[in-house]
């Protein structure tokens, strides 16, 4: 038992090349911030995605057939009760395409998000597809909270 505890404690200390201790927690990548770009070709529409991985926040851009920035939204959990709030930063307030995407990403990841989206108004299916593709990529990048195990 003592040796197992010793191994765990030793594994928590990573010795870098210079002999410095590196904390083992959320992987803050050394060097530049990682930018992920990918494109999904649907039947009649091309969706472009760009995700910038900050350590405490996610920025994502969703482009529909064009490379315009579109509407910008910020979403985060707010006090009390950690309910999710969304606000529009850029773009008209009558078109809220993208705000629901932002809200659900916060619910799933627990991080603050800033979403830029130029999906046209009144296209719920396209919005749902874009959200699904974005969520898949965020899952592969390890952003989702682990599901709590229920003990019976």
């Amino acid at each position, binding site marked *: 038992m003592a040796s197992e505890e010793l191994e765990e404690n030793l594994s928590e200390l990573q010795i870098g090349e210079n002999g410095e201790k590196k904390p083992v927690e959320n992987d803050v990548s050394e060097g*530049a911030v990682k930018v992920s770009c990918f494109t999904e070709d649907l039947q009649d529409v091309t969706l472009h995605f760009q995700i910038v991985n900050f*350590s405490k926040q996610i920025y994502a851009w969703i482009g529909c057939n064009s490379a*315009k920035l579109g509407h910008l939204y910020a979403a985060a959990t707010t006090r009390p009760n950690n309910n999710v709030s969304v606000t529009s*930063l*850029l773009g008209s307030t009558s078109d809220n395409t993208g705000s629901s995407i932002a809200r659900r990403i916060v619910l799933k990841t627990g991080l603050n998000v800033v979403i830029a989206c130029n999906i046209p108004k009144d296209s719920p299916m396209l919005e749902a597809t874009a959200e699904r593709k974005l969520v898949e990529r965020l899952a592969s990048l390890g952003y989702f909270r682990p599901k709590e195990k229920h003990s019976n």
Partner: protein
Amino acid sequence: MESSSNNSLPTQFPVSHKSFSLNIKGNKTDIVICKYDDCFMVMATQIGCMGTILHARKEESVSTDPTFHVAVIFGKRDEPFLVACARQLIEHISSYGSTRPLVLSLGLKDHSPGSMKEIIYAVIENRLW
């Protein structure tokens, strides 16, 4: 300074970007510059998140001298050097002939003029306009 860009992909992603890191007064600063069809986005962070977001645009006027409008759209509204930084960059963009607005996000530990200048120099050196 490490940098990466996507300017050499065979099927070109429509948004070009540059991502690099530098040390400003002992603070590791990550900078990402993106070029969209209708604007430029610059993100500079020392705190792991976007921080304050500003929007700067050039206003076309009848007179020869352009005027600029800079506004904080998210975050600190009482830091004048953040606004000054956005103003410098939009003027630089304008001097290179582009009328696109700028979305600038600054998540900084240090709001001194010296840090702002270094960020501005680094962005200009790696500009996409």
